[in-house]
């Protein structure tokens, strides 16, 4: 009897052990992170689900989905806590370099959370950003993009759409790639229009603003040395009389061998409060941005990208006197200095602006935002309503005369109302509570409005936005430290499926981190399409994953917990 029990127990143990040991190896798992609080709209979970299914189609890995709110997400990606995640990018300055150096230079890649570092690539980035020669730049941009598809620290996925829905009788509406220009719009029989948006501004002080909506308002209220054409990214003289180039002598070299950019201002410029705007004002404004170096600002564009340094060398050779010439001496040559001088961070501000911190937009119900642009900000109810009123003394009403727009601004007032989300904005334009809805309607709402536009007497304009969306790998973290795993995922992703199923066609597939069709010399090259194809190649993805030694199950219990020290 006892013997029988012992035999049964031994057999039971043996069978149990066999079941455990002989069962098929569990599929290794990886984690895909995404933002859960709508920073990129409400489509993010659907995108993550699709990518998960596409990767899992290889049968070699399972993909766990994890999400975080935006503040945590940004902190974690910078700390290297996210091994694979979805991210987006909107350009700071309108140059191809802004899609290259923030991603592939060692310092840029660190802030993107990929921690990619390649000494040769760093050298190429430096070379493309320090020359204005388009042939040389093209050569480096091609090399950089080719290398990006080989190393795959990022997988470009799609370009988001730009859209605007408006009363059909409004004219002069252009989905400009850099700044939406209200001052060229017209509505016959009306002297103003109302606009709805879901965007929120940070501040209208150029020394602090670093978000789309703040920049959009700043661009209506302030002019910069150079401004953009009404329809595309071509630079035109703004406060300055010409766009500096080597040919016209605006780009040169000083006695120390440093590159210089020289701008000549129009004479007699004034801010709307009557204070003068001359070369000294511009110099002080640039120095103020760098001196203040406010948290969250775009100061680094002047100090680091434009190579002005912490203590910029800026000459104003004809001050006192006409005080119209300003010469910037750069620490290193920079090919995109003109683009940075047209970004909101370089907008001159009056001498009386706060020199020890950000200028408050409103103090005791009085607006303190003072520029010299086509509009003045007159009645802001913070984070709720912004009223732009025509600057009757605008110095350059004929700016766009050669484009068939004889004088700007056209409308007396632009009233911008903030809505909490896409559905509220849709209701507002649907019920004609506002004349225009600009940023941001989700694809479903946009599709619905497009369908009913004619009956609602609305127009829906859809264009491509320079905002790109992509997948990031932290290449210091297993298994993404193996390039073959990253390449396998590049083979597996199906961009067309994302564009069709999630965005109802209101997005464009992207095969390079440099989006095509936005810049004068178009350096974009669809390298991911060339190497990985337009549609998923699951066989190649599976083969690469098989060779990547994932099957040992090492990542099976990969911790998703993130250690967070108390601070």
């Amino acid at each position, binding site marked *: 009897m006892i013997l029988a029990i012992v035999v049964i127990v031994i057999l039971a143990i043996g069978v149990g052990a066999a079941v455990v040991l002989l069962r098929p190896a569990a599929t290794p798992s990886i984690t895909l992170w995404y933002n859960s609080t709508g920073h990129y709209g409400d489509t993010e979970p659907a995108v993550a689900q699709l990518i998960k299914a596409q990767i899992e189609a290889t049968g070699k890995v399972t993909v766990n989905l994890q999400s975080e709110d935006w503040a945590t997400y940004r902190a974690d990606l910078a700390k290297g806590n996210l091994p694979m995640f979805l991210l987006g990018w909107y350009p700071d300055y309108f140059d191809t370099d802004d899609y290259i150096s923030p991603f592939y230079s060692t310092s840029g890649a660190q802030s993107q959370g990929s921690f990619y570092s390649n000494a040769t690539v760093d050298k190429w980035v430096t070379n493309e950003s320090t020359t204005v020669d388009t042939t040389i730049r093209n050569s480096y941009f091609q090399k950089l993009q080719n290398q990006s598809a080989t190393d795959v620290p990022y997988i470009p996925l799609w370009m988001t759409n730009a859209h605007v829905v408006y009363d059909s009788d409004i004219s002069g509406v252009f989905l400009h790639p850099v700044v939406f220009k209200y001052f060229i719009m017209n509505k016959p029989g009306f002297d103003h229009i109302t606009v709805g948006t879901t965007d929120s501004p940070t501040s209208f002080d150029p020394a602090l603003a670093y978000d789309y909506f703040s920049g959009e308002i700043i661009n209506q209220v302030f002019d910069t040395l150079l401004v953009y054409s009404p329809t595309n990214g071509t630079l035109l003289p703004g406060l300055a009389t010409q766009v500096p180039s080597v040919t016209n002598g605006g780009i040169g070299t000083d006695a120390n061998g440093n590159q210089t950019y020289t701008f000549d201002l129009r004479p007699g410029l004034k801010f709307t409060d009557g204070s003068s705007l001359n070369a000294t004002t511009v110099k002080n404004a640039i120095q103020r941005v760098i001196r203040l170096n406010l948290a969250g600002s775009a100061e680094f564009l002047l100090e680091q990208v434009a190579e002005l340094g912490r203590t910029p060398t800026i000459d104003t050779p004809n001050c006192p006197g006409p005080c119209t010439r300003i010469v910037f001496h750069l620490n290193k040559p920079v090919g995109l200095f003109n683009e940075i001088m047209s970004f909101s961070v370089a907008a001159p501000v009056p001498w009386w602006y706060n020199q020890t911190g950000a200028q408050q937009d409103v103090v005791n119900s009085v607006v303190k935002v003072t520029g010299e642009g086509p509009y003045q900000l007159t009645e802001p109810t913070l984070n709720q309503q912004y009223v732009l009123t025509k600057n009757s003394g605008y110095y350059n009403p004929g700016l766009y005369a050669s484009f068939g727009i004889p004088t700007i601004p056209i409308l007396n007032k632009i009233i911008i109302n903030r809505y*909490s989300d896409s559905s509220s904005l849709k209701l507002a334009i649907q019920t004609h509570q506002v004349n225009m809805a600009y940023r941001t309607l989700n694809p479903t709402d946009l599709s619905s409005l497009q369908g009913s536009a004619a009956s609602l007497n609305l127009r829906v304009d859809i264009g491509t936005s320079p905002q790109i969306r992509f997948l990031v790998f932290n290449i210091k973290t297993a298994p993404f430290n193996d390039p073959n795993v990253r390449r396998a995922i590049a083979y597996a992703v199906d961009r067309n499926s994302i564009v069709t199923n999630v965005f109802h066609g209101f997005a464009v597939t992207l095969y390079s981190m440099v989006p095509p069709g936005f810049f004068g010399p178009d350096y974009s090259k669809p390298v991911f399409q060339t190497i990985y194809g337009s549609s998923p190649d699951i066989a190649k993805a599976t083969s690469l994953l098989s060779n990547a030694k994932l099957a040992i199950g090492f990542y099976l219990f990969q911790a998703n917990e993130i250690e967070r020290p108390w601070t």
Partner: protein
Amino acid sequence: MPKQGSLLAYTVSRLILALPTLLILLTVLFLVLRILPGDPVSALEAGHRSTRDIAADKARLGLDQPWWIQYPVYLGQVLSGNFGVSLGSLYIGQPVLSVIAQKLPATIELAIGGMIVATIMGVGTGVLGGANRDKLPDVIVRLYGGIIWVIPVFWLGLMLQLVFAVGLHWFPPNLRYAADPVIYPSPTHITGLYTLDSLLEGSLDKFAISIDHLFLPSLTLGLVISGFFTRTVRANLLRTINSDYVEAARARGVPERFIVLRYAFRNALIPIVTILGLQFAILFAGAVLTEKTFSWDGMGTLLLNSIDSRDYAMIQGTVIVYAFIIVTISVIIDVVNGLIDPRVRY
């Protein structure tokens, strides 16, 4: 020294007890925010600036210090009436109290509107149900009380928007006031309550526009809260309607309608007054989602945005103001209770 058991002594003791409540809340909130992952500087800068720059900015703002060093500094500021400046993207650099002062009237206006709707609907349906026990109106009222209580506020808001704004065009879909201040100028800022400011300005047109915009959000918030009132009023009315003094009145031939309204309802109202006060506090919390649904720029929207950007100072300030309002209402209720029923003072 107020005599023990006096209303004044009771009021003073309740006020003194409110202070540690606020202090404990502030402390817990401060700690929880520091435990939570993410911080305001990373939320602003990560992805654009280098890790070194982010660390430098955190150090500049004192956020690199451990919480036990940050906390006494913050507490000292708060005790001197300074709640700090915003660190979040929307109100960066602006004094917290000044932002709250701009947003608070919107939430108060919405809460009052919601309370009016909740009271009218809750008390009305409660009386209807209680007076017609187990009859069809009572069945409908009980169903209403049960269903409306569990309907998500954002869904109800969206439905009302679709029906009354998009379908019937009776009310604007969202915002606090007309989107076009050129044609419809806003009321002059006096209290920040648009309805009250319109009346103080003597403009009935502006008052009508304010009410027009207030109606749907108030209806949404009020209807959801009203379910609780309905059930409470009905239950209290049934309790009083079967009491001895009501039976006595009935025996004397007093008409039923008179009995319900004069005797039973009045007595049923006493516990409801207490509940009304407490519901007002809950109403503030419910206003967060209602504000988002109707793009109502109040404290709820402010709190949501601040949490998203880990704006420590603004979250702390907003929650403390909420807590202060709720504690104040609760003290007032306690005092009123003490006034009505002297036994609670001892």
